[in-house]
């Protein structure tokens, strides 16, 4: 099974199992990682905002317009920001590293 690493807000690295077909948001929830996901992956908020490790960013499928629209509203956006719900684990993402941002803002208002 692929593995991935969450870098927590205090800098702690947590390597966890990342089952194929689950999104990064689902992997986080499965392991109790503090990633909100207020809209449960329906692309209606930006609370599952994660910052992808620079080495991994260009290996991901580029974001859709709808994801970019939600990222526009994310708090503390960085150059390699993505939404966790839109990244689905496959074999190529074995070893993926993502960082939790400093804070979130729920775009559902």
């Amino acid at each position: 099974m692929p593995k991935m690493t969450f870098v927590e807000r205090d800098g702690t690295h947590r390597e966890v199992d990342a089952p194929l077909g689950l999104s990064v948001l689902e992997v986080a929830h499965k392991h109790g990682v503090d990633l909100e996901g207020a809209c449960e992956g329906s692309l209606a908020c930006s609370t599952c905002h994660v910052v992808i490790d620079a080495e991994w960013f260009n290996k991901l499928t580029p974001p859709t317009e709808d994801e970019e629209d939600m990222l526009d509203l994310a708090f503390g956006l960085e150059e390699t920001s993505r939404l966790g719900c839109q990244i689905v684990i496959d074999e190529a993402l074995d070893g993926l590293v993502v960082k939790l941002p400093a804070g979130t803002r729920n775009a559902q208002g």
Partner: protein
Amino acid sequence: MIYLDNHATTPCDPRVIEAMLPWFTTRFGNAGSVEHALGREAAEAVETARGHVARLIGAAATEIVFTSGATESNNLAIKGAARFAQSVGDGRRRIVTLATEHHAVLDCVTDLAGEGFEPVILPVGRDGLLAPDVLAEALRLPTLLVSIMAVNNEIGVIQDLPLLGALVKEAGAAFHVDAAQAAGRVPLDVSAARADLVSLSAHKMYGPKGIGALYVRRRPRMRLLPLLSGGGQERGLRPGTLPVPMIVAMGEAARLALAEGGADAERLGRQADRLLALLRAAVPGLTLNGHAERRVAGNLNLTFPQRAAVDILQASPGLCLSTSSACTTSADGGVGPSHVLTAIGLSPAEARRSLRIGLGRFTSGQDVEAAATHLAAASQPQVASAAE
């Protein structure tokens, strides 16, 4: 009275006013009031207008953000792009622009020095155009943003945006274009220009003052930090209740510009050629400033051989035209030598003998003939008054 100052502002086209008026009275809804019919109707009118503005520059409607005018659009584009880049840890600080830009661009760029950015002001040639190798040299250092105007507001020269934009994108910088004087006068296409941000103004294209727009590229996404905090209008980039009548007016102005701009330009080109020929015949030593061909139709920036421009204007009370950009006329009414004319190599004395003429949609053939007669007479020394 003959109006020859269409680079300062243009009159509203009567069709624009007609389209706008109902949105002040019977159809006064807030475009944000989506719960009721009056609000939804206003929102639809805004989206229709957004589409017209987008089509004028080859953009998608979702890429248009309405603002109060080109000055605000320039501020939002330049400061917004710089501050966003800084907020995501982008280490680049260089912002490149031209010596002949409008003050709304130049001052934004130089003001950003106070926030740790590095302004770079490039010279232009005697013809007013930016040489590609001058830009390429500046782009050898990592650059965040380049801002280049499409059409100059004083000498009317048209920069080669596709050529310059390609250099900017090769260098990985963002590209902002101030198209306030270009929209509706010359064909504009955001893809051909490789532009990420384009500033537009309604009152330079026969719409009202107080409304403008900023094109913000969506793919790849161009991100900005907004200047204002507030409600989430305009994708959060420009919060504030939308001025529906003004937006409808800008949309109609853009629609007319797209439909009629080509024919307007042909006619204005012939009128400007005629005016220049008449003046050259009457005033030996008259010179045309800026590139003779790569200029917007209807613009003539002329240096007279003998009299100061302010004296020529005083002797021609029936003509409305200006010595330089109205936007740089100082609060006390004094006019300094134009920074554009000195940037293309004119001496301050020559700049003071220069007039900017901007013909427009409502300039008639008779206006041109009469203006030539008045200006020819007024430009001779010792003439008390030549115009009625």
